[in-house]
Every structure is written in C-alpha cells, then in structure tokens.
C-alpha cells in the first residue's frame, strides 16, 4: 500500500520515517514527497584520467570488473566532483552521466515496516533528465542520503541548483511485517558487499 501525503506526515511525526532536514508542506504531493538535490555531483573519470593514476605495468585497456572491484577503490578512484558554476549551480551536459545525492537524510527504521521507491519527476523527465538507473528501491532499514544515478538524455545542457531543485520524489510503501533480515546461513557466509 502506498502512503498518502497525510500518512507520510503522520509517520514522520511518529518518527517512523525520519527526514532531515524536514520537508516543507509544498514538497508533498498526494502520494509522494519531493526531495531536493544535494550539494555534490560526481562524474566518472575518463579512461585517460584513470590510466594516468595507474602504476606502470597495469593491463591496458583498463577494464572494470564490477564483481571484483574493491569497494574502497570504487569509492575513491572512479569519480571526481563536478565543478559548480559561479552562481552555485551545476551544468549537466547532454549525454552526461553523474552521481548525485539528495539533500535530505532519510531513515526508515525496520520496526516502521516502511520501504520506499525513488522516482523521477515529470517536468525533469520531459527535459530528458533521468535521476535513477535501475536502482529505485530504498529498503526498510535504510539510513542515509539517497544516491541518484543521473543522465541527461537531452541535446541541451541542464542547469541544476542544489538545495533548491526538487530532483526526485520518494514513494513510501508499507510492508506486511517487520523484515527478518538475512538468515543465519547468509550472514555467516557473507564475505563482501551485496
């Protein structure tokens, strides 16, 4: 069941959904809550930039194997900040992929039995902006800022103002039961990030 605006506000009031900073009234639609673009956008480095960082003797061309990539390397090596314009905005060039982040910290405690989905907004979609690529689920138990996988399909650049632009919407859904979490056999054998 998808939560309505009133139900979302009620769950926030009861601290069963935590949004920090709190959302103003106009960010609620009938069945979703709009979130704002955060202060950082990251772009993936070019092959040339990555190659420059590699020690001599590394296999060329560089190929990234997602199943074997080290998380620490993933976090610290493949992306760099997208510079901001003098007015504080980001300009997202056509056919450009970047990682963004919501301004709001979101927490969905397990006991709340609430999960969510991050979705785009229609105005931005019509301008060619995609804000997530295949990863919309915010699982029950999540705590953090939501990472956005953004791509500009348009043939023109888009100016995006952090802290001001409602970049995505969050749709909340109620679970039937409190999630049990990983079963014992899984956590005992777990070796890496899933």
């Amino acid at each position: 069941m998808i939560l309505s605006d009133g139900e979302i506000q009620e769950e926030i009031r009861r601290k069963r959904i935590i949004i920090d900073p709190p959302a103003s009234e106009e960010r609620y639609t009938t069945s979703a809550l709009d979130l704002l673009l955060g202060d950082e956008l990251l772009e993936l480095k070019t092959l040339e930039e990555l190659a420059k960082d590699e020690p001599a003797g590394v296999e060329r061309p560089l190929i990234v194997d997602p199943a074997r990539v080290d998380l620490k390397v993933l976090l610290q090596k493949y992306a760099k900040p997208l510079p901001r314009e003098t007015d504080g905005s980001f300009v997202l060039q056509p056919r450009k992929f970047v990682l963004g982040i919501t301004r709001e910290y979101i927490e969905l405690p397990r006991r709340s039995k609430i999960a969510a989905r991050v979705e785009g907004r229609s105005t931005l979609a019509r301008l060619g902006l995609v804000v997530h690529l295949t990863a919309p689920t915010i699982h029950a138990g999540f705590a953090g800022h939501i990472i956005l996988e953004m791509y500009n399909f348009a043939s023109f650049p888009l100016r995006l103002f952090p802290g001001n632009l409602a970049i995505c919407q969050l749709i909340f859904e109620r679970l039937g039961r409190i999630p049990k979490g990983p079963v014992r056999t899984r956590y005992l054998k777990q070796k890496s990030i899933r």
Partner: protein
Amino acid sequence: MSRAIRGAEATIDCKIFLGMFSSERGVVVELPDGRKVMAVVDKRYVFPDREPKPGTEVDGRVKVFIVESKKDTAIVDLPQAGLTQGPRLEIPRTLLR
C-alpha cells in the same frame, strides 16, 4: 563485557575511510576469524579517532544494531545505506561497547 540487549544500539571497532560523497564513510570490520566486512554508511554512524584523509583509513567505531544476544556472542546489523543491505554479523559480545 557489555550487556547486549536486543534492539539496542552499540558500537564496534572498525577502520574508516572516505566515501564517494562527503556524507558517506566506508567502514571495515575485522571479525575474529580474520574475515573483513566492508560497508558504506552515513557518516553520522561512525566515530573516527580523527577524520580520514583521501586514500587513508583511520581507527574508529561504527554504530551497530543488536538483533540477537547470546551467551558469548551477539548478532548485529551494520547501518544500512546505499551500497550495502546492512551486513549482519555474529561477533563476540566483548567487541560491543
């Protein structure tokens, strides 16, 4: 030894490094059998001895949520954020603070 209470929060030792975004931190928890578990969590869940610099890791602690408490061990969840689904670990209770 700490008293581990189901549903309570505690912290455990870990290594901490910077994430992609300034609000993220990577953590590495080393289990007694030598296995290392990595996770990316919101920085409000980590307590570094000092702020990590790019490419380095520092000692610190990460908040965990106690799922089950046994005589000598506890099953805990790491905070669940984007790149993880809250790795669940069984650790000696002596590691909890």
